[in-house]
Every structure is written in C-alpha cells, then in structure tokens.
C-alpha cells in the first residue's frame, strides 16, 4: 500500500515537473498580420472666398433612409434661405449604393455647382 502511494506521488511529481518544463520552453511563432501601408497624401483643393451667390450640392449617400440626410438637408436648405438667401442649394441622392462609383453625379456637380457636402454617414 505504502509502495503504491509512493509510486503515485512520484508519477504526479514527474508529470508536474515535465509540464512546468514544457510550459517554460520558449518558442517562436509566425505573425498572421501583414503590415499596414499608409497611402500617399493628396492636398485639398483651394476653398471658396465666400458662399455668397454660390451653388452648393448636398448629396445624400442613402445611409439611414429617407429620414436621415434628406431630412437634415431640408433643414440646412431652410437655414440658408433664412440666413444666406443668395446661396442656391441642390439636393441629390447617390445612385444605388454609396459603395458604388458616382461618375454622373460628380460630373453634374462639377458642371453646375461650386461646392458640395456629402453624407450623412453614421
């Protein structure tokens, strides 16, 4: 009985020592993460001297549905009418998803507008 107990304790001791040695072993592993590369910086285009008499496009990217950007833009239009009536506001919605390119809309803004607000993301 005593001999069996000693054997059991010895076995537990050896397992513990081996486990400790294994967990303390230092290993090297591969890194799954690639480096991020920053994109080149591009400057902003020069700003306007003033908004007086200008045409500003407010572009709805479609996020949040009809009661998000369209509703806010209605208020912005009202603000300009009240505070800067010479500013003309045009509201547009992107075609399809905001993730798609919008060449026709951007061309229209460039031909008819002086500045734009694009949003509202959330």
């Amino acid at each position: 009985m005593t001999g069996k107990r000693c054997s059991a304790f010895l076995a537990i001791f050896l397992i513990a020592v081996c486990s400790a040695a294994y967990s303390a072993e230092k290993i090297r592993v591969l890194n799954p993460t690639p480096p991020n590369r920053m994109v080149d910086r591009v400057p902003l285009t020069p700003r306007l001297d003033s908004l007086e008499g200008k045409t500003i496009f407010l572009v709805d990217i479609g996020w949040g549905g009809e009661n998000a950007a369209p509703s806010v833009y209605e208020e912005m239009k009202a603000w300009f009418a009240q505070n800067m009536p010479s500013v003309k506001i045009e509201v547009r919605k992107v075609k399809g998803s905001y993730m798609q390119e919008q060449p026709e809309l951007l061309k229209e803004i460039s031909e008819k507008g002086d500045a734009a607000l694009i949003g509202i993301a959330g």
Partner: protein
Amino acid sequence: MSRNCKQLEQQYGIPAVGSSASNIIKYAHGHDFLYTNGSPIRYIAFPFPVAGQPQSVHHKYVFESRDVVSGKPMMQAFIDALTAPLTASEKYKGPAPDPDPAESRFLGPDTEENLQRLFKELDYTDYLPIILPTEERVADMLKGTSRRPDEVIKVLDWPGGRREVTVERVAICAVMAGAKVEYLPVILALANHIPFGNSTSSMANMILVNGPIREEIGMNSGHNVMGPHNEANATIGRAYTIMSKTIGGLHNKLTTWSTLGSTMQYNNVCIAENEEAMPPGWKPFHVQAGFKPNESVITVATGWSYISSVTEAKREYPVHMWMADYMKALTMGSATIIMDPTVAELLKDTYGFASKEQLGKWFAENVEKTNYASGQKVKPFREASVNIIVTGGGGQTTWFVTDFMMSRNMVLAGGSTSIDDWR
C-alpha cells in the same frame, strides 16, 4: 463618402465636405485618412443619432447644435469648412510623413502562456484559446495546397492599408483556428472574401459550402448543421473571423464600430448544403450560381439576422405563407431561407413548388410590406434576391428566414468562389 469627396476635389477641383454622425468621425479622421483615402477631408459631424429622428430633432441639429469636430455652431462649421484657407498640412502632397507601423514576420520567442496572452493583447483572436502557429505547424498546414506560401491572394484596400493576403498568412490563421490540413483549400477560397462584413449595425456573415469537398473533409450538412457539432464547420467558420481580424485588420473601435456586434461572428454560420437530400428538380446553390455539380464552391453572404420557425410545419399555416409573413420583417430587400430537407419536400410535393426559382418567384410576387410614411404597399423582393438553402438532418420540418445577401446581390465581400482552384 470620403472617396466621393476626394474624387470631387481631385478630379474636378470642387471643394467638398464630408458629414457624418459623431459615432464614426474618429474613424474618418483616423484610419480612413491614413490608410485608405489620404486626403485630409474636412468633416462636420452631427450629434448622434441622425437616422430615425423626427424633423424637430434635425431642425435642432442644424439651427442650434454645435459641430462635434470643431465645437462651432453647426452651420458656421459648414461654412468655414468650405471657405477657411487651407493649412500647410492640408496642402501637403507626397508620401505619408509618418513611418508605416512595422510588423515582424515572427513573434517571440516566448513561453506558450505568454504568447497566448500576446495574441489576445494584439486582438488577434476571438478570445478563445488558439493553436499557436509555429513554423512547423504552418509548414504542415501548407501541405494542404499546391500554392506557394508567398503567393498574394489579394491586396486589401478596405479597411485600407494595402494589406497583402498571402497563402502563408491564411495558413497561419488556419492553424490558429484549429483547422485540419485538408480544410486549407476551403479556407484559402474563403480568404478571397476577407474581411467580413462590417458596419455600425450588427452585420454578420454566412459561409455556405457546396460540392464534393463537403464529403471529403467531413462537413456536416445533416442534424445540427448550424450547431457546434462538427470540426470542419466549426474551425472553417472560426478561421474567417481570425483572418478578418488579423489579415483584415478589423479591430474594435479602430476599424469596426458595430454598436452591438453579432455573436454570429464567432462562427459565421458555416454550413454545407445537403445536396443529396434535395427534392428532384431543386438545384444546389452553387449550380444555381453557374458552377458544375462536381465543383466545390464556397459562398459568402452578408446579413444581420435570422428568425426560426421554432416549431414544425402546420397544415393550417402553409410553410411558404408562414415564411412570407416572416419576410415582411426583413429590411434589405434580400432573403436567404435555410430549410430542412423535409420542408423542401413539403413545398414541392404538397404546395407544388417544382424548383427553388419557382419558390423565389412566389415570394417576390406575394411578400408585401407597408410604407407607413406614405401608406403605400411595396414588394421588396425580386426572384433573384431570394435564396433557398436546403440543409439539415430531416429530423423536423423547421426552417429559418434570414436577411443574408448571397452572390446574386452581394454587398462587401460576398459572392461565390471555387475551392478547387485552391487545392
């Protein structure tokens, strides 16, 4: 939004301002600027939330609130964003002045315990224990493909950083997820779809596997197909999350801003279709998508939610009508219905739907929602935007209606990819 602002400024010389709610402005100014856009776009940020608020709140935002970015009255901030002269940094053109953050090829040497902790600290895991990717384990994993370890599968331009997805990095993630070597071609095909869907909403993903590889690697398409009962389903689904976080760079409040998140992102609803149990005339999903029956294909879908039938089919409430009622709750004009083979048989034999396409057409014609603002009735689905998946063990006539968007109307990284190309 930032892409359109940049295009307007660069291509047409039109000053543009971005607008967001306050919840994502940090991302716009930070990661998006540094790694995706490169243009120091001027933003105005409205208080949050914007969507779903009454007009009176929007009136207050515009007339009384302050811009979250500058602290100025909102409309003054907008005017200034279009008229204030550019600063030196806004005029800068050229390489980013800050060095790229370094990533070494190896981590360690250190103890397993410390490395497990390090991977968590770096947010490289799903916070469950991982298999540490030693060189030996990764080399073994790479035996699962004929592709070279340094082959670039794609370069991620979203969420930016031009991050290279290489075969070796995918193998590293497969090891971490606990995958077997024979799963690697599936995971490499899956890597074409990283990172997974990501939004301020609770966007989630679904992974569907079709074709012979299901049997070859022992995927489950029977009982408990959607539960934690199969090694291949479990680890392939998990690998998508680990790849999206490590290679894809999705980290909480840095590049992913979902306010609630989704528990589906632990496994990404990784399932196989039970093609053998399909009623005659019903085609497997990959065949519908244009692949041959003997090709192995992975399809990744993006969605948010699913609703269970809970109980078995009822005579007084035909399943297609019951499904149609559930579909009224979906908001994106897309649906994927996951049904047990017994439901498919019922739909064919009892209700006469000879094909998945015929069932999809019925949904497109019969699911009607009400626009409560206008009172108008609308039919939000098209035949092509309704997908039918048959899977499960034939043990009960249950089904799920989900809003997942599959290949035919995918968003973000969705779509179908051949697995055989990655063997």
